[in-house]
């Protein structure tokens, strides 16, 4: 049985193509049922996120299966296959496994290491499990992918550093203040990035937020959104000492916070450190503020620099993650190849035969005054019993037209009779988290 993957992602297709072939999460039953109804396709899972649309399937006929999946994607969405085809990638066997493990581990994401993709694949798998389009192979396959992703996350630092400006600001604040739960954020002006950063600070739990703007009404409006306290812009200097973290992005053409003011501000807050984040262009805060004791000023360029360094760091960690993926591919393939019918039948027969011969030898050696030729007859008798017993299961397994049930039987046989499986059966039934 082969695993095949057909799909497209942000790397091969623009959003104008991706949106055309995306599957709605509320209507997964129909496409999943249609997929497993296709000839040659035995199991199927659809992963559809804003950055990728992929179908994972099992088939006996790799080339035919892939062609059918491609045709299905095009037909289902009424999209011309000729146009779609050049955006599609398709993998089978080891490559398919590598691809899915990498996707689940967020190595193929637009922002490498972003954590959402794993949850999205788990949800996709959930639909396939619910509508019974996935069977023993894809179940095992995706569980393995989840455990690989988990290993990558715990054994590498791929997701541990901030790769957005807003997150970088929060991380830096933590390096200055440690706990943020007793800290106050002051938002000066408005702007998308500034508000995003404010939201991040609120999410990690700061004590309070103050908002100020040249027009007080806008401050009030924004304050309502953030559950914050609006403050008059004219009273900025009165409120500055109360703020630990200052996010500034006004449209002012000149500095609004000057170095000379800082001495007084710091004195009034007993020299407790302040963290200024200046997102405005032109800048709002005099760069000399950074030279004031216990004041730390970061501009948008500084934060971009932090993000760039972290992205570099992620690349290093990604290399470690790739090594983990390679290791796990090997393990998974050992299991997959154990599902081949012929070696299983051979193993089953030799297992039975060993028992038969051992028991026969025991009986014969204890049996005195054995009539001549009886040992031959005993041998033939036990052999006939064994063959009769094995006949039905063997012929059933040899029938190739029963799709994924075959893999189920093979797997069950290996378990029931303890036929040597290439690897220890690690329990990967960990869908939680």
């Amino acid at each position, binding site marked *: 049985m082969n695993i095949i993957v057909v799909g497209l992602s942000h790397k091969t297709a623009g959003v104008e193509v991706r949106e055309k072939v995306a599957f709605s999460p509320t209507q997964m039953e129909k496409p999943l049922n249609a997929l497993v109804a296709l000839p040659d396709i035995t199991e199927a899972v659809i992963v559809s996120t804003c950055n990728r649309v992929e179908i994972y399937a099992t088939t006996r006929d790799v080339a035919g299966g892939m062609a059918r999946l491609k045709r299905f994607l095009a037909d289902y969405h009424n999209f011309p296959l000729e146009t779609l085809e050049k955006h599609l990638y398709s993998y089978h066997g080891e490559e398919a496994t590598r691809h899915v493990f990498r996707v689940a581990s967020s190595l193929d994401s637009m922002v490498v290491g972003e954590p959402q993709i794993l949850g999205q694949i788990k949800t996709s798998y959930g639909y396939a499990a619910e509508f019974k389009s996935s069977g023993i192979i894809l179940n095992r396959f995706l569980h393995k992918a989840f455990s690989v992703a988990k290993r990558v996350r715990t054994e590498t630092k791929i997701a541990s550093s901030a790769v957005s400006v807003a997150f970088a600001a929060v991380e830096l604040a933590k390096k200055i203040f440690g706990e943020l739960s007793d800290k106050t954020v002051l938002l000066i002006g408005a702007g998308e990035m500034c508000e995003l950063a404010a939201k991040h600070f609120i999410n990690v739990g700061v004590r309070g937020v103050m908002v100020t703007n040249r027009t007080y009404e806008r401050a009030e409006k924004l304050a309502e959104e953030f559950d914050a306290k609006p403050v008059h812009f004219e009273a900025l200097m009165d409120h500055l000492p109360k703020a630990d973290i200052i996010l500034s992005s006004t449209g002012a053409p000149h500095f609004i916070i000057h170095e000379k003011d800082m001495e007084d501000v710091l004195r009034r*807050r007993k020299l*407790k*450190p302040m963290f200024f984040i200046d997102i405005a262009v032109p800048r709002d805060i005099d760069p000399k503020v950074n030279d004031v004791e216990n004041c*730390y000023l970061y501009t948008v360029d500084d934060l971009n620099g932090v993000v760039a*360094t972290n992205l570099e760091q992620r690349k290093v960690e990604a290399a470690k993650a790739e090594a983990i993926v390679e290791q796990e591919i090997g393990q998974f393939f050992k299991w997959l190849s154990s599902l081949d019918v012929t070696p299983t039948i051979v193993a089953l027969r030799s297992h039975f035969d060993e028992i038969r011969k051992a028991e026969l030898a025991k009986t014969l050696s204890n049996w005195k005054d054995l009539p001549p030729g009886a040992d031959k007859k005993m041998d033939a008798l036990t052999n006939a019993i064994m063959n009769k017993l094995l006949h039905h299961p063997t012929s059933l397994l040899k029938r190739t037209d029963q799709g994924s049930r075959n893999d189920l039987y093979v797997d069950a046989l290996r378990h029931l009779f303890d036929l040597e499986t290439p690897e220890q059966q690690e329990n990967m039934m960990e869908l939680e988290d």
Partner: protein
Amino acid sequence: MNALLFNSTLVIYAVVTAVYLIYLLKPKESLGKTGLWLALAGFLVHCGFTLNRFLEAGHTPITNLHESLSFFSLSVVGIFLLLERRYKISILGSFMMPLALLIMAISASFSTVIPPLNPALKSRWLAVHTIMAFLGYAAFAISFGVSIMYLIQSHFLKTRKLGSMFQKLPSLDILDDISYRCLTFGFPLLTFAIISGAIWAETAWGTYWSWDPKETWSLITWFIYAALLHGRLTTGWRGRKAAMLSIFGFVIMLFTFLGVNLLLPGLHSYK
């Protein structure tokens, strides 16, 4: 036995220091744990040494430079272990253990034989006075180390050098907090050490205060730390300024301890 325990301590501290310095430079988290366990082992051997010395000498083994440096180092490691338990900051070890090792190494350079006890020291005040003084010194030493960490971290933040050492160092607030806690722990000890010393001086030499160099310098040290604590409580001296003052205080304290003993003749010149 004495020498064996002392040398074992020295060797273990050297290994711990090496482990912590590698931890500082290499991105390997597990080294912090290794260092901690080794430091604990070293601390226990060191306690064994101190106890053994006490039993052999028959009095508190803080009567000459070899012994008092060793006890100083023991106190530094002890306080470090308590802090590490409370704050779980492995990198503390990268700054504290080299200090402890250095103090032990200096201790090793002085005569290790147990001399007959100077009659002036034959008093129950010996234990009280010296133990308090050295615990206080150790607290100031930790504050010194943490203050250096503060200055480094502050420098990283100001100059945007956000490398792996920056990641390992804790936040400025925590460093400031640890340094302050150490001072509030060390300062009362120093105060009581001075008071108990005065009382002892009255019984031993007949006068509470004789402006002996050790007494004078202890008072200077006391005033520096008093000023630091006072400044923090009133105008809020903290951050870089507090860190630099704590470092300055430690340097003066070292002079009070070592400089006075070695350079200035006086009643306290025990070598």
